[in-house]
Each structure stands twice: as C-alpha cells, then as structure tokens.
C-alpha cells in the first residue's frame, strides 16, 4: 500500500507527512480561538463553559467534604477522550456542547427531541452533593447541579412497554480521539430499570460547582446515579430510548464477568481486579488510607428497589 502510493506520488512527500485534515482544522480552530480571545471576544463554547447556573440548594450531602473542583475536573474516566485520567481534560477542550438536542425515542407516545435549554427548564435546577464511587476503588464528593430524571421521563410520556431506559452517549470520532480506538463498543451505552430511573436520587446533571458542566465531566448533560458505580453515569447524552428489554451496555459487552447491568455499589460483591470493600477518597492526601465502602454507596433508601433480589447474582 505504502509502496503503491509512493509510485504514484512523484512529489516524494509521504502520506504520513501531510497533516491530517481534522488536525489541520483543529489548528485553525485553536488559532481562531486565540484570535477571538485577543480581540476580547469569546467563542460560544467558551461562553458556555463560563456560564453560572440558577439553582436551589438542597440538604443532600451537606455533611460531606467536597472534592476540589481541580480534582473533579482533572481526574476523569471518559474514554471517548482517551483512556488516561488526564486525557479528557486535555482532549475535550475544543468539544462544543452547544447547540445540543437529545432524541427521545422507543416506547413513547411520540418520538421527539428536546434542546438543552428546554431540558433545563423542565424542573427547577437543584444542587445535589453526592458521593461518587468508581468501580476502580476511588471516590469523590461532587456538588452536581441538575434535575431529577423523572422530570424528563414525565415529559417524554413513555408507554406501558417501557421497562428500561437506554442512554446513548454522543459519538463523534472526528472530535473525540478516544472514539477512534475500539477500546469499547461505541457509542457508549448505559441503562437503568424504569423504577431506578424514577428514583428521586437519579438526576440529569447539567452542571457542577454552580457552573455548567465542564466538557471533561460530560457536558452538556450526563446521568448521575449515586448508589451505582460511576460508569453508569453516561456522559454527553444524545439519545434516550425507552425499551422493553434490558439494555446491553458498553461495559457489559466489554466484559460481562466484570461489569453487570445493575452495578450497584456493594462491598460484598468483589471485582476480579479491585477491592470493593474499601475505597480511596480523592483529595484526602497521601497518608489518608482507605475508607470503608458502604452498600449502595450509603444511599440506603434505594434498598427497596432490590427487595428479594440476589445482589450477588445481579451485580
């Protein structure tokens, strides 16, 4: 292939030496951004990121010590932007979370779309300070700003066939370098059972620390289910589909033995790699050690959703 190309290429320039078009365009965007900033103007994307939200305080997590904004926005698992923890903060800089619409489809009265601005008006925005436990054995405390997922479900008007909800994340290999590599089966798919989705703790987050979501945290809208492992929180949601069958999520496809559909935080269900009985709290310092992980991440009120279920089997 390479030889063949050379023969037909009298200039002697190797294809590998030519700047790929998307990189070339990215450079132009960077230059434009620099130019705009110099002129005292802001790009829409940057204006979006600086936006402060109007929200109500709530009692959730009042007793918790918050993980710093710096740590929350620099240590992320967001494989569409790379598998390293620092990759998303770096690679998502040029990602444009606006304009944004979410498709609502499947078992609903009528398929429709909803814009991010309209979504943010479905219910008053609330601050929810939640613990987030990652399956990898670390945790944070994050002051999310969002609205109950229930508000969107009510608006969507699902039919009686809707037993589960599937969340499909935005997938654009051109602007998401990680999505060019098949580490996971793209697009990222997550799911919840209908009653889990209606639970009042389950929110669609549109911000954190009082401002709109930074790109690396899943802008413009992501799922937050605080009693489940972090990977359940699909980021940059582009489609919400009401379905009858249990969705086959990206991590289940990657390794069904390691990642179950429920993925409830449970110190008694171990993972083949990581200790699940304890966790490291991000930002606690080098000598802080580990803290005990609690069933359902300490959100005991969700226990009734799983009454009579074998949590060892349905992990």
């Amino acid at each position, binding site marked *: 292939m390479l030889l063949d190309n050379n023969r037909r290429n009298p200039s002697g320039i190797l294809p590998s030496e030519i700047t790929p078009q998307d990189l070339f365009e990215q450079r132009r965007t960077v230059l434009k951004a620099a130019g705009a900033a110099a002129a005292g103007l802001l790009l829409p994307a940057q204006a979006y990121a600086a936006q402060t939200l109007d929200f109500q305080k709530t009692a959730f997590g009042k007793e918790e010590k918050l993980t710093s904004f710096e740590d929350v926005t*620099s240590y992320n698992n967001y*494989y569409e932007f790379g598998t390293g923890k620092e990759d998303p903060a770096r690679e998502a800089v040029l990602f444009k979370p606006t304009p944004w619409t979410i498709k609502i489809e499947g078992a609903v009265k009528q398929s429709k779309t909803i814009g991010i601005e309209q979504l943010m008006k479905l219910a008053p925005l609330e601050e929810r300070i939640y613990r987030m436990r990652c399956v990898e054995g670390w945790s944070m405390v994050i002051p999310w700003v969002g609205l109950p997922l229930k508000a969107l479900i009510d608006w969507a008007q699902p039919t009686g066939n809707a037993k589960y909800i599937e969340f499909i994340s935005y997938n654009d290999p051109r602007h998401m370098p990680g999505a060019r590599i098949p580490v996971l089966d793209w697009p990222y798919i997550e799911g919840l059972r209908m009653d889990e989705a209606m639970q009042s703790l389950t929110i669609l987050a549109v911000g954190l620390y009082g401002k709109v979501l930074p790109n690396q945290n899943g802008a413009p809208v992501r799922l937050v289910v605080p009693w489940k492992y972090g990977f359940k929180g699909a980021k940059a949601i582009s489609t919400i589909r009401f379905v009858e069958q249990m969705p086959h999520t990206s991590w289940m496809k990657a390794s069904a033995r390691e990642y179950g559909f429920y993925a409830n935080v449970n110190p008694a269900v171990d993972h083949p*790699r990581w*200790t699940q009985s304890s966790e490291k709290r991000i930002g606690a310092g080098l000598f802080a050690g580990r803290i005990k992980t609690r069933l359902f991440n300490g959100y005991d009120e969700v226990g009734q959703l799983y009454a009579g279920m074998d949590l060892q089997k349905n992990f």
Partner: protein
Amino acid sequence: MQAWIYRKTFNMPMMQNLLQWLAALSAKNRILWLKVLIWLGAFIPVSRLIYLGFTDGLGANPVEFIERSTGTWALVFLLLSLGITPLRSLTQQAWLIAVRRLLGLWMFAYACLHVTTYLWLDYQFDWVDIAKDIVKHPYVLVGAAALLLTLPLAATSHQRAIKALKQRWKSLHKLVYVIGVLVLLHFWWLVKKDVTEPVMYSLLFALLITLRLPIFIKNRKS
C-alpha cells in the same frame, strides 16, 4: 509518538558515541563511569516523585501515581538488566557484564518502593485487607509472587554468594525470566481496557529473550 520513542531509544549514533567514549577509557574507569551514570539516572524517577510530592504535583490520586511510577521503573530496570547480555554479544563489549548487577539491584529497589507504597500509603498496613486483596485479585497475586522471587536474587547478589553457590548461582538467577513473565502478567491483568502499555513492554521483553536465543543455543552445545 511511536516514531519519536523509536528515535530516542534506538538512536544508534548516540549509543555508539557513548560506547566509543567508554571504550577509550581504561577498563576500570569505564565501568566506574557507567556505574556513576546508572546511579544518577536511577535517582531521577524517585527524586521526581519526591519533588512532585512536595509541590502538590502528584495529581488527584497521588498514591496511584506513585504506585504506577515505581512499578513502571522496576519493570524498566528489569528489562535493562536483561538487555546487558544481548548488548554484550552484539557489541563485543564483554566488560558490560560489570553493570548488570547494579541494574538488577535498582529493579529490586524500585520494586521495594512499589510494594511499600502499596502496603503503607494504599493499605495503611491493614494486613487483613491486604491478604484479601492478594488472594482475590490475580494481578496482585502474581505481583506478590514476583516480589517474593526477587528476594533470593537480591540476597545472593554479592560476590561471596556468587563464589559459594558456583554453578547453582547461575541456575538460581534464571528466576529473572520467571519474574519477568509474572511482572508482565501483573501489568496486563491490572489494566482495565487499554492494553497499549503492557503490549509495548511485553514486546520489548520478547525481543530481549529472542536476542538471547543464539546464546542459549551456544551454551547448550558447549
């Protein structure tokens, strides 16, 4: 990126210049200088960690950062020590053998830092949790096994042991191959999904083993 790593690692003129400079020295000085270089080089990663630790530069998860860094450097020194024998036969510089032990001991030093970080900073010497972690998680188990196997090698690395054990010393130190395999398994099984790094280190290990094959065959014949 790959091309850059390749150029930096296998920059033959640079390597040749260094070797020529070393070759011009007397045998004793040559070994001394190379040892000084290795000592200086080996102190860089740990000094960097200490510096980053004091300047709040270890990121959101400092324990993980130190575990990864020390683990990676232990693996690098393991590969460097395995590289000496093929390099000797390729360059015909028999004296290079004099620095192999130093590289092996630095592997041991970084492995000790790695394990200390795990036992102390990660698990605060909570032996019950540590025992559970080792038994339940295959990657921790093979890592622990690798560390145990390095102990007899480090303990018999001095001249007296070499003399006392004679031919048995050579057989004993073949354990380094087993350690290499265990350490690579440790790395593979620890990674969640993106196996790029373990693949790269495994390929290097395989290359070093392949380069040894002629030596193995020669030794078998004689």
